């Protein structure tokens, strides 16, 4: 197994900067997710690690070896593509055996390994089929088997679960995680699905428009987002944002958006006010409590619409001229038009610089 290091990696296609000065280190045996919306450069990054694209600038290291100019075949990587990219003219057996045949592994050894991998992935009954005769989930396992067969130093996964149905996806999430921990292969996983990234990865690199936004453990991304993009991308339903200003009055700090104001705890207010006054306040739907009566330092709102999710309900609350989403218990029996009060958990409020979008609390 190896450590993967990307150093100032930039990739430019024509005039488009796909990846912009990316620095990333993936530790030996670590499971790292590259997370971001479509077109953010995450797949490009993966293909550069694979050696299919050459970085325009920067270097890539496997341990201490500079592999920037090494062709893919000499990097000992396994890769699963979003489309699985199985060889349609080969059977499942031949697909899994192909990388081993290229490595000139002896025939009986190949046979043993293919059967072992197939058993591990529970596709041993499909070895004589052609890819076109398999379901999506089976194809995905074959692709994984082909990637694992040659015992790669690095496993690269490009949205491997996005073509599966919802139920199978949840199942495979746990399966993949277990497999990765069991084999201890350094893994880079590309996805646009934050739930996948949060539930599987040891660390997540959030990317947007070719730039690394934040690289941290899942909890840190959730609790301490570095900027407004990460804050809005991680979490479902997404974080609510309200523009406003923070100021001090008689030694007390307030957040005021023109339609309502809340008093901030002194420590919090001091930190923010020392940096800027024009801010964006963010709060997660799950960190607000709904009160049916007026309590001190709460914000008045009107229930706009209620979306039941089964275990929870998402309450859309109209506060002044904006609508925010609040996660609440279905026991509340809220109805549209009802007047309610929102109580914020001050330790779970986020404040961002209105201009740069960076967090004021990290």
């Amino acid at each position, binding site marked *: 197994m190896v450590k993967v290091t990307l150093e100032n990696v930039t990739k430019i296609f024509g005039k488009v900067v796909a990846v912009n000065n990316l620095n990333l280190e993936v530790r030996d045996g670590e499971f790292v997710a590259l997370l971001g919306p479509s077109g953010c450069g995450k797949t490009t990054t993966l293909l550069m690690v694979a050696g*299919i694209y050459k970085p325009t600038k920067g270097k890539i290291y496997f341990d201490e070896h500079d592999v920037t100019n090494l062709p893919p*075949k000499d990097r000992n990587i396994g*890769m699963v593509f979003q489309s699985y990219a*199985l*060889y349609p003219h080969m059977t499942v057996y031949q697909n899994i055996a192909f990388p081993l045949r290229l490595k000139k592994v002896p025939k009986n050894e190949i046979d043993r390994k293919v059967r072992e991998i197939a058993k591990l992935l529970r596709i041993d009954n499909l070895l004589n089929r052609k890819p076109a005769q398999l379901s999506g989930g089976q194809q995905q396992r074959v692709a994984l088997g082909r990637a694992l067969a040659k015992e790669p130093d690095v496993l690269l996964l490009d949205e491997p679960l996005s073509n599966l149905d919802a139920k199978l996806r949840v199942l495979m999430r746990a399966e993949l995680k277990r497999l990765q921990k069991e084999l201890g292969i350094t893994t880079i996983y590309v996805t646009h699905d934050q739930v996948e990234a949060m539930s599987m990865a040891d660390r997540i690199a959030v990317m947007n428009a070719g730039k690394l936004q934040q690289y941290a453990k899942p909890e840190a991304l959730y609790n301490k987002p570095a900027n407004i993009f990460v804050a809005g991308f991680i979490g479902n339903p997404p974080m609510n944002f309200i523009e406003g200003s923070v100021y001090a009055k008689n030694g007390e700090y307030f957040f005021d958006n023109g339609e309502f104001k809340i008093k901030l705890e002194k420590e919090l207010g001091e930190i923010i006010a020392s940096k800027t006054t024009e801010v964006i306040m963010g709060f997660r739907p799950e960190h607000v409590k709904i009160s049916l009566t007026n309590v001190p330092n709460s914000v008045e709102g009107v229930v706009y619409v209620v979306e039941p999710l089964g275990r929870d309900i998402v309450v859309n609350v109209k506060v002044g001229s904006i609508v925010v989403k609040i996660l609440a218990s279905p026991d509340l029996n809220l109805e549209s038009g009802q007047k309610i009060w929102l109580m914020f958990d001050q330790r779970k409020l986020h404040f961002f610089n209105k201009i740069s979008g960076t967090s004021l609390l990290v």
Partner: protein
Amino acid sequence: MKSSKTIKYSRTKALLWTIAKYLVVIIIAVVPLIPIWTMILWLFMQSFSSKVIMGILPSGLTLNNWRFLWSSLKMGLKEYPNIWPITFNTLALALGVSGLVVFVSVLGGYALSRMEFKGRTPLMEFIIALHAFPSIILLIALFVILNKLGLYGKGFMTLVGIMLIKAGLEIPMATWIIKGFFDAIPWDIEWAALVDGCSRWRAWRSVILPQVLPGIGAISIFSFLSGWSEFILVFTYVKNEAYYTLPVLIYHMIGEYKFIDWGLLSALGLFFTIPTLIFFSTSQKLLLRIYVGGIKR
């Protein structure tokens, strides 16, 4: 009661409509085939019968018209022991054209489909423009070239020269066709092969090529048939009867006698179409079989 009547009525209407549709299909699809089938039938009947009534009804089964397969065949002053040397010439020309076309266009088509290089688009437009020139307007220039290359009047080497010309004329279109087949292969599959440990050449050979087999089948058949039926180039450049091909032979069969042996001619014609028939009946499946990649579509 009333509603069941309406249903019955609309059922009759639907039935009539279906019949009308089938009638239209039959008229459009079958009627134009009648003259073609008549011609083929004529060819077939004529070649196996000693006499035909009304041009199509056979009387007296005979293999006499097929005697060129085992006994001598006279053409003007030249007498061939049988048809096989000429068949060999034709086959050599057709296979040579086909081989050259497949070799060049498979490599060229891959490059045009997969590789980025300067002037790729203009090159592709230029290639298609080349196809606009029929061989007949190039006859004189090609004669000069053949002569300069020392391939004119050199017996079998002249056929090789014609092979080169014919392949050159077929390659542009074949390259375009095969490029389309390469275009249809997702990049992912080629990348997967590279990651699995292939060099670019090996990936092309073991992973990409097997998937364009239907395309290779198509261009090899088309170029084989175009070589097989080539007339004007052989007619113009080959002066030695020993290196004639079947189309030229058939032409001379018609051209040099006042009296035409229709039975012999139709048997020759049928003999000439045999490869075409074999090719189309065996390769239909190959042409239709297009591989489907990883995701079900």
